[in-house]
């Protein structure tokens, strides 16, 4: 099995995101692996373990070179090699997907990888666009936000949450999935795995694209919370207020 995993970096949740002179200040931000990508990577590594011998997990990340540290961790979690791809100046999801698709075609040649795993969304921008754009660019079967996966050598059965229920789908190889929290429990890295990961290759791949952005960010502003909480003495008063506001029933 040839398995690719797309990983990105996001500020960890304890990072302070502040504004200086109206502009967003990310200088005090600590970047970590996107939490959803941990589930994606774990699922890939489980596949590798199941089809042992010939399977390889290759990681792809569009980010500045500072993402090496995160990729080391991903290699310790079970990736075999990693490719770091530099972003365009103001990458939008389409450009990111385009860079990833070119890199995957470069690395795998004419054949596609059997499987590609991505996270459901990145927790910083939450666009949830890159995975299915990538699938469309590569011409792969794909399903977003899966919560369950059962594979045989011929087909893959997956489930995803829809509003008020669960949808079951059948997919063939080669396929791309973006994964939802709860698909698996990502492993902790061991010291031995961390040591071994140091020997695994992280290569830079230079991809140039000429397509311009589909979407641009025109402003980023602090979210002003102008609500002022009215503390109420008891539930009787609460019901009165809510009935008055017509939000009950």
């Amino acid at each position, binding site marked *: 099995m040839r398995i690719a995993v797309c990983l990105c970096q996001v*500020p960890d*949740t304890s990072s302070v*995101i502040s504004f200086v002179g109206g502009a*967003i200040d990310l200088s005090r931000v600590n970047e970590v692996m996107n939490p*959803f990508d941990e589930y994606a990577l774990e699922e890939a590594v489980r596949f590798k373990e199941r089809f042992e011998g010939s399977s390889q997990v290759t990681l792809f990340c569009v980010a500045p070179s500072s993402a090496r540290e995160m990729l080391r961790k991903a290699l310790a979690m079970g990736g075999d090699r990693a490719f770091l791809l530099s972003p365009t100046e103001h990458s939008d999801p*389409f450009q990111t997907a385009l860079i990833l698709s070119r890199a995957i075609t470069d690395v795998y040649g004419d054949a596609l990888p059997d499987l590609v795993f991505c996270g459901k969304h990145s*927790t*910083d*921008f*939450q666009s*949830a*666009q890159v*995975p*299915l*754009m990538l699938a*469309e660019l590569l011409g792969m079967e*794909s*399903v*977003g*936000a899966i*919560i369950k996966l059962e594979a045989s050598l011929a087909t893959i059965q*997956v489930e995803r*949450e*829809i*509003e*008020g*229920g*669960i*949808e079951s*789908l*059948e*997919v063939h190889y080669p396929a791309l999935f973006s994964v*939802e*929290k709860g698909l698996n429990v990502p492993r902790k890295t061991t010291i031995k795995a961390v040591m071994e990961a140091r020997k695994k290759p992280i290569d830079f791949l230079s991809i140039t694209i000429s397509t*311009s*952005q*589909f*979407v*641009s*960010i*025109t*402003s*980023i*502003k*602090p*979210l002003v*919370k102008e*609500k002022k*909480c*009215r*503390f*109420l003495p*008891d*539930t009787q008063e*609460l*019901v009165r207020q*809510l009935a008055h506001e017509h*939000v*009950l*029933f």
Partner: protein
Amino acid sequence: MKIFLVFLEQREGIVKKASIDTWNLVQELAALYPDTSVSALLAGPADIRQLDGVLAGQGVVYHANEEAYRLCNPQHYTRLIADTMKRVGATTLFFADTALSRDLAPRLSVRLQASLLSGCTVDEAWWNGGACQRPIYSGAAIASFAPCCPLKIYTIIPHATRSFSSATTSGSRITFETLEPSLHTSEELFPQVRCIAMHKGVRDVAEATIVVAGGRGMGSAEGFALLEELARLLGGAVGASRPVVDEGWRPHAEQIGQTGKTVAPALYLACAISGTPQHLAAIGSAGTIVAINRDPHAPIFDVADYGIVGDVHLVLPKLIEELQEFLKKR
């Protein structure tokens, strides 16, 4: 002439309320400007009489009334939508932000070379360049995104503070046109939806107009019986914070937050939820927020409209009683 197409999503023959809200929002925007037309595409067998009196404005609803569209197979849907865009000459496509549109929209964006603006809210300023807003960095900031391509796709989060249920449908002129069967639907295209299993009798948090959510302070799975009772009384849905789901007290489908669902109910009741940024990120579009927490300094109170400081195990039974009283009197 600007031509908008709104996708109406059905599940089991019922057109989603979120889709109807999106149509009504688009009608409201279109009414602000001359020379616009709005049409809709409804895919799958559905009784169109359910749309009587709920769609505002004027326009044509194209109905692809084929059995092949009963289940939402992405490849067939993508083709149908792309074909209908061409047929009506639409430059802008609107979806409600749902599991289905999050799957279809990125595919269509690549296929049609269209700007995709997803999970966003739009307001009147939308006319000026088509920009829309979305919170980023767990709600620490709000970003404005602008499309760069001639074709545009939006997936819209309804805004609880705007009530579309009261959208005026008087004087609306909607016509229906059944589309001739597509040629490609006989083809077996994968992925293929094998079945859907709906949770019977349970309302989804992402769609409910009232959400009663519980946090770690509810204490146990049993503690949620109070919230279920409350949800039943109010006709709402139960939601949960992440630790509650991680503990296995509630299913992941109910999780609200950065790694859960985004909700926009008219009333959000947060019980024993501290209100961390990862949770607040997903309730930014809620209407009235009520918080019940024993810690008067809990950050949830910073975003709440009403607060009660107290133990949920004492406050909630009283609230249930008050509501029963209130219901009796009505």
